[in-house]
């Protein structure tokens, strides 16, 4: 029914992926709503509009694969299979959140699902992901490591150091760059003469490609090929996904720096809309798709309400988890 460029990759479970897209979309909308109401500490970064990359890539990952992401990581975390309520609870700082309220939006970790961390330092996650890949390689497992980052990370030294090292050691690492044309508040052409991030790969000897990141089925297919190769031991792969941010850089950002025509055009490129049209053209009933969207919305709303009702962390525990080795915690100043 659907053309897939991948070999050895099972056909997409479009229902599950469609639901996953909506789940992220509604989740981010709730984060935005509560942030506007003052219930979200700090500054969460939304991935609205970039859902297809998260869903398409993570569809090929197992629980044991390591996922690293950036400050804009809610979508990746959900797509990897983390519990919606626990993730939201962490973002609003509840004791029962993934990280017991100690990490927040930019530092989501769920070790049980292989989400080894979001980071708030741009490019800070790249070498960590390489390290996790190295550990898998050293132990002889066929797990891989995936790291999501924005195009702004290509300005950091660590980006180049990690590409170099990953290629040298042939690490089982998939680099996924979500190129949305903006880094912080500045457009890409002011950041770099290199327009296409995938162009950085060849000098280091890394396979790469650039695709339309808002075409879920394309992302799914290309990511499937890439991941199969990485798992096989072909070495790292850099997948650049062109996409577009539909919310501002962070919640509260007034988007003064993007022309209005651009914002309207992007609505037409919404990955959920595109998948929906594609599926309807192939005979899926619109009502069924709407029902899936509605289920996802309901699931998210319930999880959010339950998360909001959870207790806040006990200040008495503030010094817990600084150290783990016995004896160090009591002695530390």
């Amino acid at each position, binding site marked *: 029914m659907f053309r897939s460029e991948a070999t050895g990759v099972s056909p997409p479970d479009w229902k599950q992926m469609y639901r996953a897209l909506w789940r992220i979309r509604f989740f981010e909308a709730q984060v935005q709503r509560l942030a506007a109401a003052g219930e979200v500490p700090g500054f969460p970064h939304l991935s609205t509009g970039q859902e297809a990359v998260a869903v398409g890539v993570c569809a090929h990952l197992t629980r044991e694969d*390591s996922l*690293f992401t950036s400050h804009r990581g809610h979508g990746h975390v959900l797509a990897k299979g983390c519990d919606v309520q626990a993730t939201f609870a962490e973002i609003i700082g509840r004791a029962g*959140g*993934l*990280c*017991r*309220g*100690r*990490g927040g939006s930019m*530092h989501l*970790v*769920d*070790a*049980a699902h292989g989400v*080894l*961390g979001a*980071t708030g*330092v741009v490019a*800070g996650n*790249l*070498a*960590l*992901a*390489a*390290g*996790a*890949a*190295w*550990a*898998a390689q*050293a*132990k002889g497992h066929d797990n891989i*490591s995936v790291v999501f980052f924005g195009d702004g990370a290509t300005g950091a*030294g*660590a980006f180049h*150091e*990690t590409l*170099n*090292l990953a290629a*040298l*050691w042939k690490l089982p690492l998939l680099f996924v760059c979500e190129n949305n044309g903006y880094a912080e508040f500045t457009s890409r052409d002011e950041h770099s003469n290199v327009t296409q991030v995938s162009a950085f790969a060849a000098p280091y000897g890394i396979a790469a490609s650039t695709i339309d990141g808002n075409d879920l089925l394309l992302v799914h297919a290309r990511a499937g090929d890439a991941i199969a190769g990485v798992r096989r031991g072909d070495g790292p792969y850099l997948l650049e996904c062109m996409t577009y941010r539909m919310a501002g850089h962070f919640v509260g950002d007034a988007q003064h720096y993007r022309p209005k025509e651009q914002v309207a055009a992007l609505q037409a490129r919404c990955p959920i809309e595109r998948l929906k049209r594609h599926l309807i053209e192939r005979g899926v009933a619109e009502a069924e798709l709407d029902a899936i969207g509605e289920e996802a919305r309901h699931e998210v709303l319930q999880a959010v309400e339950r998360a909001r009702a959870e207790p806040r962390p006990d200040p008495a525990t503030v010094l*817990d*988890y*600084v*150290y*783990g*080795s016995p*004896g*160090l915690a009591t*002695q*530390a*100043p």
Partner: protein
Amino acid sequence: MAQTFIEIVRRALDEELARDPAVYLLGEDVAAGGAFGVTKGLAQKHGALRVRNTPISEAAIAGVATGAALRGLRPVLEIMFIDFATLALDCLVNQSAKYRYMSGGQLAVPMVVRTQAGAAGGAAAQHSQSLEAWFIHVPGLVVVAPSSPVEAYGLLKSAIRLDDPVLFIEHKRLYAMREVLPETPELPAIGKARVARAGKDVTVIAYSAMVRNALEAAAELASAGISIEVIDLRTLLPLDMATIGASISKTHRVVIAHEAVRNGGIGAEIAARIGYEMFDDLDAPVARVACPFAPIPFAPELEQALLPGTRDIVGAVRALSG
């Protein structure tokens, strides 16, 4: 048979590589033996995958070591000079130190960063610093500074077995020091200081290469009838204030000696804590012997003029005993 610091640390690494398959060494030139020869022969013995060379990429290799530790390896990363730790600071400070806490206890970073510090023979300003004070300011890190080969052997093994990230700071001038490793060497606990020499008149607190200076000062002062108690901190973070307190309640006078610059050095933290926690035991203000506020110069006369040593410890103790 006496062996050098380098040989004894190499032996500790060799034994740990053999004991625990999760231990990996990585760093610039480590497979070739490392800049000071500490890892010589280990790649040949344990394989190029267990003892791995890296490019000159401190930021990336610190990240790789951290990421691997998250996934169950126990990497021992070598950073050639502590001066270059600056390039790895984002990872060490923002990631390695904080992963356990930020993840709410889900993940640990059981890694060791071996590096060396201190001035010797004209290495000059960018290769001679003692930067340990920066790292005791970071919750989640552990900082260890051994004072001799035998101390380094036990402390390194203890550090490798710890489940928290450890910065293990060796000292250039100790690399040639010779000692005999006992049959069954002790593995001292991280976080506990030792009394290197008992005394009753003045407490001298030191670590790393300065412990040797303090012991020399002790011998010289003894012949003048002054008995100093030398405390070797061993671990700089967390500090063992209990051992320090027990000594000061006996002597009532204390000198802290370190090679690092005095301004904002570890001596300042220790002095502040002594002043607060042991106020009533003090018979004199807490004194510090340390490097004055300048980069380490190149010419030998200038370098010698700047570095604190045995003379300065003797002088400080005498000033307190007047």
